Structure formats: structure tokens, C-alpha cells
């Protein structure tokens, strides 16, 4: 089994994901990342997922596609996805592609965590 590309921790009410690698580019890695997150939340009825981009320096359009696929499957289960700590250059990619309008993006983990809908 390949080494995990993510640190996944269960917090009070949500699952927090951080990347091990500073570059999120390769489609093989992206497939593994998607599967690791799906596995972590598969038993949850309405998953709340916070993906923290701390330490991520480079991303590709394929990574944006993976995030969109995850968002879609989380929301199909009436869950919520939050993104945080995105480097300003990477955030520019979201703005250029207008995906900043689709994702809930926050400056810090704390802000992202507090933005989940109160149950």
C-alpha cells in the first residue's frame, strides 16, 4: 500500500485534511488523495470536511478537478466542504477560473471550522 499523502484527523464535528506533499500535481497522487478522503468520510451521513492547504506551493488544473469531484460527492450527501490557508498565488488560480465563487475559502482553519452550519 502506498504511503499516505494526507494527514486526516477527526475533530469535533468535522474531518480535517492536510497535504503531506508541497506539490499537488500528479494525477496518480490526486487519485490516491481523492480515495483517501472518500474512505475517511464514507461512513458519515453528512460529512463536514475541511481541507487545509498549509505548506502547499504548487497545484495543477487536475487538482482543481479533484476538488470539484470531492465537493460534488460531499454535497450529494448533504455535507459541507471548506478550504483554508491557500497560498495567495494558488488562490489566484481559483480567481482566474472563477472557482473562488464555488468553494467556501477561508484564511484560517479556525475561520473555516466556525463557518460550518451549526447543527
Amino acid at each position: 500500500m502506498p504511503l499516505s499523502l494526507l494527514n486526516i484527523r477527526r475533530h469535533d464535528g468535522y474531518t480535517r485534511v492536510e497535504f503531506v506533499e508541497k506539490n499537488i500535481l500528479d494525477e496518480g497522487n490526486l487519485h490516491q488523495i481523492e480515495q483517501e478522503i472518500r474512505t475517511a468520510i464514507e461512513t458519515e451521513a453528512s460529512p463536514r470536511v475541511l481541507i487545509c492547504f498549509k505548506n502547499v506551493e504548487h497545484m495543477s488544473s487536475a487538482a482543481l478537478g479533484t476538488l470539484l469531484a470531492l465537493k460534488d460527492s460531499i454535497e450529494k450527501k448533504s455535507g459541507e466542504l471548506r478550504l483554508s490557508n491557500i497560498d495567495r498565488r494558488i488562490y489566484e488560480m481559483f480567481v482566474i477560473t472563477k472557482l473562488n465563487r464555488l468553494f467556501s475559502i477561508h484564511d484560517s482553519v479556525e475561520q473555516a471550522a466556525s463557518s460550518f452550519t451549526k447543527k
Partner: protein
Amino acid sequence: MNAPHEIPHEIARIERAFHCLRPGLEELQDEFASALLRFGFDEAATFAIRLAIEEAVVNAFRHGNKSDETKRVHFRSCISADRIDIDVTDEGAGFNPNAVPDPTREENLEIPSGRGVMLMKAYMTEVEYLAPGNHLRMSYVRPNSH
């Protein structure tokens, strides 16, 4: 970053012809990043060019060569103090970049693919596909060097 007087006056050429994507692309990116540093390009330029090379070479492998490892992707580049020129050619039939739907249209926002060409155009100074559409030529001109 190098002081302006330390920027090399010569031209650096980096060329590759590769059958498989990894780890060749990472090695190319590392060599390119070292060259950009030597020529005094800043972090913004380095980010832009790394992204454009990633998108161009991945597209050439996946969409151009259809991941057929008997075919090659040819990468040629020329780095100078004020500009970078890059050519990426695959051995596929070519495609019409104008046929790629605009990923920023409301109805396309949630489609997971189709953003690579747009990002290259956003980050590079010039991007064009030469006939029959399997040859991408792009350049980055250092700001204020026109």
C-alpha cells in the same frame, strides 16, 4: 535572487523528448527552476512557468498522445534574461483549442476538467497552438523588459 548585474547574458536551452510523464516532468521542472533562479526570474514568474509547463506537458501526454508510451512528447525551451520561449509538441493528431468550452461560464463551473489551456493563457505572455494543433508555443516576457 541574483542582482541585475549577475544575470547571465547568454541563452540557456533545455530540451527533452520523453515517453512517460513521471518522473521526467519533475526532473524537467527542477532543472527549469534552477535556470530561472540563475537568470533572476522572481517567484511569481517561477510559479507561472512551472504551472504552464505542467499543464502543457500533461495535456500533450494525456490528450495529445492519449497516454500511449510508444509516443513521445518533445519539449524545447530557450531562456534569456528578458524572456522564456517554450515549445511542446506531441505525436497525436492535434486539437482545436477553440473547441474547449469556456470553463468560467456558469454552466461549466462544476465540470472537473478543461482549465489547463485557460491557466496557461492567464499566466504566460503568449500562448498559441500551431497547426495541426499538436504543437504548443508559449512565451513569458519579463515585466518591464518590452
